């Protein structure tokens, strides 16, 4: 496994290594896929959000997932890639087992059994293979995302039957057989099996059912529905016309918002909110509810912009349109009045900032400013590093050892009252400047937002200087940063890479097929929906990757 690092408050570069020459080209190369390997894993573990949505779709949205999944590992910037490269651990598998037991128990409980089992056994105290078979014929293909396999059904029926005999309970038998299915690799892993292409001698193609799974988890963040499975079974997914029909159907469904939410929650690293907390002594408005709402605000903003309006992706950094609750509005100091329903303070309402407001765009939202700050104060370096890595797909080198921090040691020095002053002192050393010049100017322009996501104009009594610089171009304040990111070609390149990796588990190869996808995205005026469609229809997404 690989260990991925959160941003360091203070970066430093060893004196022996001058990074003055490190430019964005070098960093972009650092973010390129690893050297081709003859054999890398191709199977992808269901992410927790995919797992949850799959269970809801196969059974019922009332089935609760009780228990904590093993934390996911981020690789190449995405959990979706980590899902391919990470292994099972003993404790992680134990978690799957307990979650599976909880799900299976609910499926057969008295509340759900009539609808989810779909038949009543002749006797609840013994096996009933006919009833069990009708249940497994529906559930096995849905969970395993494969063609109906009679031998597989028979095996599950026999497993349930034996268990029912031993425990003298039909439902216990079904429950245990279902538990086994839910911890099986056939459910937990998504496969990308390749097979000979019947219509193209000597060439290979992805298995149609695996193609259906990839499409469905990409666009809906969930398991394929019956129609997609049918298209796989009938061979339609192997034709360009059939593929187009299914892709357009999936994209016209409201459920495509789930896929987009999955992509951007992963890209913006929202899973890291799991370990974020703020000190109420400093930030009384930052609550657990705000933590949830901050993520939701950004996802709603993105979905509205890219799905509903087919807007230019770059505008998510500058858009004045967003969604707020009363709590978020209070955090932001925005005078929102919900006139729709009295007494529902957490209702989401649309909101549009006036022109030039510092709160426009997603970078000033609490989902960004609070995620990349320690519990009680800001970290311009962490914010800048996160911008580079998560928004622009550029890698910031880690700080090496044996660095002297004398320039930031003296916090009592009246010259170093603000974060900017301390970091600039630190950055005045050539050994430190290489990395910090990549992160700090961007992070410092968000200093108007404290660690709890609130606006501030001063720090320790000194007016905050929120000027910054990106790609050698100076700008002023959060609005300037938003515009600079908006205009940086790395932003659109990054989202395109992330979307492909979210779909496949692989960083795209920089070949002509990829350039064609990028061109389609560009020609659509950076309509993310056009990007997703181009990926979903490309041969590249279904080819053997990582070789």
């Amino acid at each position, binding site marked *: 496994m690989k260990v991925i690092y959160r941003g360091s408050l*203070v970066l430093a570069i060893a004196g022996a290594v001058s990074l003055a020459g490190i430019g964005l080209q070098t960093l972009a190369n650092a973010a390129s896929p690893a050297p081709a390997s003859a054999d890398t894993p191709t199977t992808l573990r269901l992410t927790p959000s995919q797992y949850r949505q799959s269970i809801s779709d196969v059974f019922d949205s009332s089935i609760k997932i009780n228990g904590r999944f093993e934390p996911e590992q981020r690789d190449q910037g995405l959990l979706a890639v980590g899902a391919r490269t990470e292994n099972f651990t003993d*404790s992680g598998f134990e978690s799957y087992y307990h979650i599976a037991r909880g799900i299976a128990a609910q499926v057969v409980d008295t509340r759900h059994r009539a609808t989810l089992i779909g038949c009543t056994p002749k006797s609840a105290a013994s096996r009933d293979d006919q009833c069990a078979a009708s249940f497994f014929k529906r559930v096995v293909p849905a969970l395993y995302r494969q063609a109906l396999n009679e031998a597989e059904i028979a095996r599950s029926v026999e497993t349930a039957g034996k268990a029912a005999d031993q425990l003298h309970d039909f439902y216990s038998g079904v429950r245990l057989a279902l538990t086994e299915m839910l911890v099986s690799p056939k459910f937990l892993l998504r496969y990308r099996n390749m097979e000979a292409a019947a219509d193209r001698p000597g060439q290979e193609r992805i298995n149609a059912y695996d193609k259906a799974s990839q499409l469905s988890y990409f666009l809906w963040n969930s398991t394929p529905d019956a129609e997609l499975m049918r298209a796989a079974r009938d061979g339609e997914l192997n034709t360009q016309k059939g593929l187009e029909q299914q892709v357009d159907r999936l994209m016209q469904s409201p459920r495509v918002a789930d896929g987009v939410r999955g992509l951007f929650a992963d890209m913006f690293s929202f899973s890291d909110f799991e370990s974020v907390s703020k000190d109420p002594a400093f930030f009384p408005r930052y609550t657990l509810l705000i933590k949830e709402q901050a993520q939701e605000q950004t996802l709603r903003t993105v979905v509205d912009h890219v799905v509903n309006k087919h807007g230019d992706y770059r505008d998510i950094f500058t858009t004045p349109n967003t969604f707020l609750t009363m709590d978020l509005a209070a955090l932001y100091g925005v005078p929102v009045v919900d006139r729709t329903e009295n007494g529902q303070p957490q209702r989401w309402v649309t909101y549009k900032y006036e022109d030039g407001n510092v709160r426009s765009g997603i970078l000033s939202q609490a989902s960004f400013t609070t995620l990349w700050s*320690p519990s009680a104060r800001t970290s311009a370096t962490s914010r800048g590093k996160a911008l580079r890595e998560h928004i622009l797909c550029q890698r910031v080198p880690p700080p090496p050892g044996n660095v002297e921090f004398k320039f930031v040691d003296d916090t009592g020095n009246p010259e170093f009252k603000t974060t900017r002053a301390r970091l600039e002192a630190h950055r005045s050393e050539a050994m430190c400047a290489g990395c910090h010049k990549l992160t700090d100017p961007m992070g410092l322009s968000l200093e108007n937002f404290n660690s709890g996501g609130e606006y501030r104009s001063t720090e320790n009594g000194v007016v905050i200087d929120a000027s910054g610089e990106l790609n050698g171009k100076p700008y002023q304040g959060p609005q300037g940063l938003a515009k600079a990111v908006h205009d940086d070609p790395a932003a659109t390149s990054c989202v395109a890479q992330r979307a492909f990796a979210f779909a496949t588990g692989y960083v795209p190869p920089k070949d002509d097929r990829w350039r064609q996808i990028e061109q389609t995205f560009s020609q659509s005026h950076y309509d993310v929906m056009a990007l997703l469609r181009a990926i979903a229809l490309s041969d590249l997404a279904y080819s053997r990757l990582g070789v």
Partner: protein
Amino acid sequence: MKSSLENLSRRRVLRGMLAGGAVTVGLPIFDGLLNENGNAFAASGAPLPTRFASWFWPCGFSEQDWAPKTAGRDYELPRQLEALKPFKERLNLFSGSHVFLDGVANQTHFTGVQGLMTGKVTSSGDYFNSVDGVIADNIGSRSRFKSLVVVCDGDPKASWSAFASGKVPGEVSPMALYTRIFGPGYSDPNAATFVPDPETMVTKSVLSGISEQRADLSKSLGAADKQKLDYYFTALRSLEQQLEIQLQKPSPLEACSKPEEAKDDGHPLFLIEEGMVRHKLFCSLMTHALACDQTRVVNLAITQGMTGLRRDGDPTSHHSYTHEEPVDPVLGYQVKVAWFQRQYFENLRDYAAMLDSVKEGDKSLLDRSILFAFTDHSAPRLHSILNYPFITIGNANGAIKTGMHFSTPGDTAARVTLTMQQAMGVHVSSWGAGSNQCNSPVSGVLT
């Protein structure tokens, strides 16, 4: 630890249950629990187990002034270890060893631990087979849980425990840990009766159905996916083993008792005061788990190296202070940083005392353990990977000498972790790679 009598009982139980309904089997409590010397189970003659408890504290000792001037027995306990004074004769201090980079960039707060815990440094961020994982692989299969891994600050990724499959995320919730160990599936070894759970037996049988499909599951996979599947089956086997142990009547354990149910849900923490409260809860749960032989290997991390823990009312974290606090010109060290470090070591002392309060025959649980303390940087102000401090408390059932300061200037830190493995009975003669590699333990530690 299971005797033939216990196996026989279990088989009878299972036969009786399968024949129709569960039966209750009465077994004598404490009847011949330990042998006359109090160092082995009387029933089986098996020696009482040795346990390994690793413990991570962040940001080392702040400056390089901590190493005692003299090695051997009569050394002066440094200021940083004052809290451990009650255990001076039962602990060892290791100083002077380094992690060697061999050209790999030092990823601060990571590469040093990677080197000392796994014996290797890599630029890729790989982290496999930490010393506690290797020990658990060797001795963990005899208990219900191969190992237990916890993190006190709410971030599961702060764990430093790893097996061949990768890093093991830490359990962050004492409440969840309590349920995992002492909830459903736990059998009191001192209970008068033992009734194996019929459902557990059937579940185990059902799960075995997956293993039967192994060849089918792997037939279309390449080598990397086959290896991934191997790790899956290793994890499945571990669960099956857990169920198997739950079906056996456990040997009576005089020192075993069930702790109070923990209520802490493991939410993220930022105050060290709260972190130390949770630390105590975790230590209590793990001490009970060790005493009840639910596991023989535990790993606790207080927080990540780049810790966000700070004092109530102060916005600056321990980690930030290591870089930003000036060295006091009179005292010669960072005063605020030293305060944090003192909190950790007072809690390490309490953990040791907790283990020592559990009596197993002629020794305490601490005597039958190694409590192994390690950190990410010796002097984090400089992100230094030189002169690492290690502390061990306990003598591993007499496998190591104690009361010593072992000074090995310029040596590889991996030699200390090799020594831990050999003390725990792992048959390994070589450990690590490149300049961190070593072929013998720290001289004079093992008895």
